[in-house]
């Protein structure tokens, strides 16, 4: 995606996300207040974010590629266990990965 197509996607995704928020305010309360709806929505978020972790950490150009990113991700997990704030978690992953690459690893 580039240029105008990317712009269109940005705007469309933004409008869609806003519409979803608005629906929650406009629909009759009992429609969305069902436990099963809440459960499916929660699991969809978990599945998407987990899949994004995997794709971002272990694939490149349509192939599974294992490299220094995994060590960075592992370090991020340690930071999360230690209850580090979001920014620290992200920085730890970047620093560990950058150091390993500086040392010559892929």
């Amino acid at each position, binding site marked *: *995606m*580039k240029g105008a197509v*990317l*712009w269109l*996607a*940005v705007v*469309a*995704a*933004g409008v869609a*996300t806003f519409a*979803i*928020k*608005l*629906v*929650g*305010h*406009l*629909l009759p309360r009992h429609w969305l*207040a069902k*436990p*099963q*709806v*809440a*459960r*499916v*929505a*929660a*699991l*969809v*978020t*978990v*599945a*998407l*974010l*987990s*899949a*994004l*972790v*995997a*794709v*971002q*950490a*272990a*694939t490149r*150009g*349509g192939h599974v590629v294992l490299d220094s*990113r995994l060590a*960075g*991700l592992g370090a*991020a*997990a340690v930071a999360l266990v230690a209850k580090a704030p*979001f*920014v620290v*978690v*992200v920085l730890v*992953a*970047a620093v*560990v*990965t950058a150091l390993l*690459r500086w040392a010559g690893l892929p």
Partner: protein
Amino acid sequence: MSSAVRQAVSVALATGLYGVSFGALSVVAGLDVWQTMALSLVMFSGGSQFAFIGVAGSGGSPGAAIATAALVGLRNALYGPQVAPLIEVTGPRRLLAAQLTIDESTAVGTAQRDPAAARAGFWWTGAGVFLLWNAFTLVGALVGDSAGDPRRYGLDAAAAAAFLALVWPRLSNRTAQAVAGAAVVVALSTTPVLPSGVPVLLAAAVAVLVGVLWRSRPAAAVTDAVASHQSEGASVRRVEEPGS
């Protein structure tokens, strides 16, 4: 300052700050500074924004990027019914309330005991996060714009870590952990054969399947019922603890 406003300010600061990582990673993923700002202003939902740049940055189609961002944002629809009775707004202000309905404002608003504090908590958190998130997104985008090769600085791993940090507090029960594991397997095993972005959406389909089938098994063991009850309790607790 009331305790609701104090909470709002601290949550807004913590959340706004990670707008830096979003701004930087968005530019690294191939969006320009303006497109990055458009996401923070219009989409204004961290998980959806990271999802969009994650799919766009790995060569996904516009449809896959839009669908992934929207699906990650589905939970925001469930916050409306919790927030609307607290703030009781009508007319155009409903549009503003809807835009500010995110994880953090819902958490702070619903955690208050009296109605005035709930309204203050929701609006102060929503407005505070909006201002700081956008300001720090701009800072991050400008920093990211001046960084050279993103891989050299480990920024590809940073993006993965951002997703991990977003999903981490949601993994408090067995079902969520099982779905997370299945999502990873589905995404990695289908990556070589499907267009970029589609494996992530396929993982969401697995979650829908699990969420629906769970209920439709009346013979489910007692342990299942207990686990499901605990998971609902856990998700309520999560919403009540800002910044967790």
